[in-house]
């Protein structure tokens, strides 16, 4: 039979779905939980520790039990059945059971529970060793099975600013929205449910004499007409962060282009109208499937037309629970009895025996509750009733999670037996049941007042106060946090249903002197499951209070942390995955690089040629060929990532001289100078060549990727330390492409262009810069060399680089022009013994360590880092200094990163290491640079270089240099 527990009156279309392979029918508009219940399915999961059978307990987000697996393959995920909208074909299954949900072997642990009290694992499992016990424990733990492969779904993200964000669309939220909307404020209402209305959708509530749903329809109609109001359904606010930034996750209504969307909502004012969640009662074996929150019973009957069962017992400690009786009766269900723990409860319930001062002391039924035993608190009278459903109401917990996340303090209100919002921190207003307001009338008025207060705070006029006719009864509650041991006997009373925390566990914690609620939480894992204790925290801390002679307020709550409901990692990442994760920067000549068969790799964010592939060559051969071309003909490299900062203004030179380590006061127009840039601790952070193309302009070359950072450093230094200087710093790195021509025929290549610069060595010597026109476009050409060969760094506006590259390649093939990659360039500079900042230096290296002590010493004025280097107290006797190394055992290059130590001495790290190393085709031998403690004074010494488990003998040498005198440079 299909949907045996469906009540008449549901208008939704039938939808096929499955649970644990069973084909079932539900209705559109249902949650998965509602459709399961319609099919008589209560047992949906097993608890974490003892694998106790678990049924659907709640109506919505508060449910701790019903986490199920959904979908399959790459689409699989887990969620709580009470929060999942039923869709056609939905596949759901239970988690972490074996062999099946009904017959789960893990349940034997329940039999051993007396040996496994809270925190038992701290007391055992370390003899003989934890490693013997851990693997089976890990295998048993965990719920969700991680899907395989990339998530086939996409995630959207959006920012939004508003004047007022209202969370929750119950009577309180909507009445606040109405007030604010009318005044023209930019209002967003976020509601986690698929429909707006909150409790109005299912509680039998009358407003102004009519069904509350009439008011709801009118209000929604009105709100939808305002262009300044955005209503977001299926949107759960998960996090309330600083400065009124709230995160919300919107669920796509069906299959579509995105699965979930993360909203970052920045609001001037926030109204929280998040309602309240009912608490379970704590009594022996209160965890069986078929035992539900009283409000959930009403919810399933009224909203989804589903009967959780046919024979219902109500247990309550407050008046509110009685609503369930009427709703159930109206649906034609039998309510067998009400057990009200309050001896003097005044409320009546026609047609049902009400037993005052009575509580449930036992329940029976394995996969489903079958019977309950109740007793008066004075133990005089006992009842045993066969039933299939127990509705329980232990009072209400205002949903203060978001309020607390915002920095607000919660306080205990004894009358309502609940924690309610106290002092706020971000101007947050709480309305309705979330504020601990009980009656419908109070919800409406507090919502209205919240809206009015927002208007007042934004300096707008509030509309005149309104009045509604609605119920205004105070809910009477007399907290009963658990059943006294005298009645309960040894049976377990469950507090945290997911993590299997019982009142006995709490007693044990108290007995072991874990009196802080935070200790209780961590020792017992109370409230640490995915539901984060929405139903268990308050009961647990109140029981701890009873045990230690404190009120719940004195015990206090644990810290509420985001998220209010779990949110997927995918939605946090949004579209920043795959190719959109960290974009790369192509070179201006990217297309030409591809045409030349460049092996493109990421250097920093730039996609640059490591080397150029040719048939029959491996990487080493390619590098050797490129080096040969540079030494004997000419190489071409798109060197555009080289940072270029223009420093101009009346005080440009004065300013830059305060930044960098070399002395610029003698830098003439048209000349270039090498310099280091240090941080204030004297450590090298960059190097580069500074040129002075014109009297009033300096161009600072930086290493690739450093330009952005250095521009910021200099700009900030200017603003903070010397704002009186007139300086303008512009980052022109991507304005100017740089094509580097290097090699003995570099000039010849350049001579074949339309260029108005005299290239003769006299006119244009090494370490100078010239500006002019090339092929009709402006150019700057610098003669600086990182390879030791004659080099021209030819800059043109970036858009012209492809044409220029093309021109070079096509016009100079006969000269042996060869495109050269970064790897060859690195060997070329190593053949000259030139420094590679970041490779030959680390975060401790100072100029003196790499042979530039004189640069610093000779400069007479202040610059960043200078004073620190001059600290007299600094002891740099063990500083690592850059030197060369020669492997004594033959031709193989040393490994970069090899550690140096002295044979015979104790082996320790940090005394030296290889920083650069390669085979030099030019010198036909291996080259290496190393940082070595007191290295410069140790030339000639023999050491061992440790790498990958083996030591190689090496000799400390002066770095080897191709063309040591630099004669080639001036060619």
């Amino acid at each position, binding site marked *: 039979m299909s949907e045996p527990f469906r009540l008449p009156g549901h208008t939704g279309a039938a939808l096929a779905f499955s649970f644990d392979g069973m084909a079932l029918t539900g209705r559109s508009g249902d949650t998965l939980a509602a459709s399961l219940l319609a099919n008589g399915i209560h047992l949906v999961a097993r608890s974490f520790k003892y694998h106790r059978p678990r049924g659907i307990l709640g109506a919505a987000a508060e449910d701790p039990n019903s986490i199920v697996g959904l979908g399959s393959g790459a689409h699989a995920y887990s969620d709580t059945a009470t929060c999942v909208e039923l869709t056609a074909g939905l596949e759901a299954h239970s988690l972490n059971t074996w062999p099946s949900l009904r017959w789960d072997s893990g349940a034997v642990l329940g039999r051993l529970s007396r040996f496994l009290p809270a925190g038992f694992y701290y007391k055992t499992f370390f003899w003989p060793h934890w490693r013997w016990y851990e693997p089976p424990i890990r295998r048993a733990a965990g719920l969700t099975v991680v899907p395989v492969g990339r998530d086939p779904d996409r995630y959207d993200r959006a920012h939004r600013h508003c004047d007022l964000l209202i969370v929750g669309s119950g009577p309180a939220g909507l009445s606040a929205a109405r007030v604010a909307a009318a005044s023209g404020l930019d209002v967003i209402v976020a509601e986690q449910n698929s429909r707006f209305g909150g409790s109005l959708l299912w509680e039998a509530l009358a407003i102004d004499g009519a069904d509350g749903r009439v008011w709801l329809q009118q209000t929604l109609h009105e709100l939808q007409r305002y262009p300044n109001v955005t209503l977001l359904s299926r949107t759960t606010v998960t996090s309330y962060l*600083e*400065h009124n930034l709230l995160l919300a996750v919107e669920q796509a209504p069906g299959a579509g282009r995105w699965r979930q969307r993360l909203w970052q909502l920045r609001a001037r004012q926030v109204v929280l109208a998040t309602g309240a969640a009912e608490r379970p009662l704590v009594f022996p074996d209160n965890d069986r499937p078929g035992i539900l929150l009283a409000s959930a019973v009403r919810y399933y009957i009224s909203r989804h037309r589903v009967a959780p069962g046919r024979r219902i017992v109500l247990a309550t400690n407050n008046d509110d629970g009685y609503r369930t009786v009427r709703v159930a009766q109206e649906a034609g269900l039998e309510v067998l009895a009400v057990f009200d723990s309050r001896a003097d409860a005044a409320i009546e319930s026609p047609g049902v025996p009400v037993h005052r001062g009575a509580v449930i002391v036992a329940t029976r039924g394995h996969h489903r509750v079958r019977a309950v035993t109740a007793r008066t608190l004075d133990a005089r009278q006992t009842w045993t009733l066969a039933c299939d459903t127990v509705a329980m109401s232990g009072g209400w917990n205002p949903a203060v999670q978001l309020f607390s996340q915002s920095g607000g303090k919660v306080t205990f209100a004894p009358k309502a037996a609940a924690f309610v919002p106290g002092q706020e*921190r971000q101007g947050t207003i709480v309305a309705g049941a979330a504020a601990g307001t009980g009656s419908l009338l109070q919800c409406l008025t507090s919502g209205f007042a919240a809206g009015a207060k927002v208007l007042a705070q934004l300096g707008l006029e509030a509309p005149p106060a309104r009045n509604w006719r609605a119920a205004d009864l105070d809910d009477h509650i007399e907290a009963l946090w658990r059943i006294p041991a005298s009645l309960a006997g040894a049976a377990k009373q469950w507090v945290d249903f997911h993590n299997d925390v019982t009142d006995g566990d709490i007693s044990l914690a108290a007995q072991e002197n874990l009196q802080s609620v935070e200790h209780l939480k961590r020792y017992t894992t109370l409230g640490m499951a995915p539901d984060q204790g929405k139903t268990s925290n308050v009961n647990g801390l109140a029981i701890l209070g009873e045990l230690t002679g404190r009120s719940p307020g004195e015990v206090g709550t644990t810290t509420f942390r985001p998220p209010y409901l779990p949110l997927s990692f995918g939605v946090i990442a949004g579209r920043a995955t795959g190719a959109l994760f960290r974009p790369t920067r192509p070179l201006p000549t990217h297309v030409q690089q591809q045409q030349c068969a460049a092996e493109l790799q990421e250097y920093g964010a730039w996609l640059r040629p490591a080397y150029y592939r040719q048939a029959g060559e491996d990487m080493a051969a390619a590098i050797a060929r490129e080096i040969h071309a540079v030494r004997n003909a000419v190489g071409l490299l798109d060197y555009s990532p080289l940072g270029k900062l223009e420093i101009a203004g009346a005080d440009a030179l004065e300013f830059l001289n305060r930044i960098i380590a070399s002395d610029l006061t003698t830098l003439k127009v048209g000349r270039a100078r090498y310099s280091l840039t240090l941080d*204030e601790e004297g450590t090298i952070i960059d190097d580069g060549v500074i040129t002075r193309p014109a009297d009033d302009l300096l161009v600072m070359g930086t290493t690739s990727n450093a330009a952005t950072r250095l521009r*910021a450093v200099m700009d*900030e230094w200017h603003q*903070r330390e010397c704002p009186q200087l007139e300086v303008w710093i512009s980052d022109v790195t991507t304005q100017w492409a740089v094509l580097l021509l290097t090699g003995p025929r570099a000039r010849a290549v350049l001579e074949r262009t339309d260029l108005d610069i005299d290239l003769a060595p006299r006119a244009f010597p090494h370490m100078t810069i010239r500006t002019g026109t090339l092929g009709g476009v402006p150019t700057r050409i610098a003669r600086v060399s990182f390879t030791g060969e004659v080099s021209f760094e030819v800059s043109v506006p970036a858009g012209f680089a492809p044409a220029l590259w093309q021109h070079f390649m096509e016009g100079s093939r006969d000269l042996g022009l060869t495109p050269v990659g970064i790897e060859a360039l690195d060997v070329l500079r190593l053949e000259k013994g030139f420094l590679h900042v970041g490779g030959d230096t680390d975060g401790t290296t100072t100029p003196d360590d790499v042979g530039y002590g004189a640069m610093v010493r000779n400069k007479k004025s202040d610059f960043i880092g*200078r*004073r620190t280097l001059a*600290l007299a107290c600094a002891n740099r006797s063990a500083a690592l200094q850059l030197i060369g190394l020669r492997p004594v055992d033959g031709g193989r290059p040393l490994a970069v990163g090899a550690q140096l130590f002295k044979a015979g001495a104790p082996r320790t790290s940090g005394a030296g290491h290889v920083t650069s190393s390669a085979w030099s085709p030019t010198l036909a031998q291996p080259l290496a640079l190393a940082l070595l403690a007191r290295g410069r004074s140790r030339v000639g010494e023999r050491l061992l270089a440790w790498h990958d488990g083996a030591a190689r003998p090496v000799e400390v040498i002066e770095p080897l240099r191709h063309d040591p005198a630099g004669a080639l440079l001036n060619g």
Partner: protein
Amino acid sequence: MLLIPCPYCGLRDESEFSNRGEVVVRPDPDAASDAQWVQYLYFRNNVRGWQSEYWVHTHGCQQLFVVRRHTLTQQIERPA
């Protein structure tokens, strides 16, 4: 994510800015003793409470300015 009041651009999201730590005054390098210099390099008040600190509107107007922020509540004083 804080809202940082840029003196030029108004309230903007924290992610547009870089924080540069509490305000310290760089001593005159020629006059400062070693001890004073070390103090400037490494020692900070690190208060719990109101702190004057530098922020730079990195992804905006690139200006450096001083903000007073409460390091416990994250309140920020609006500049007058």
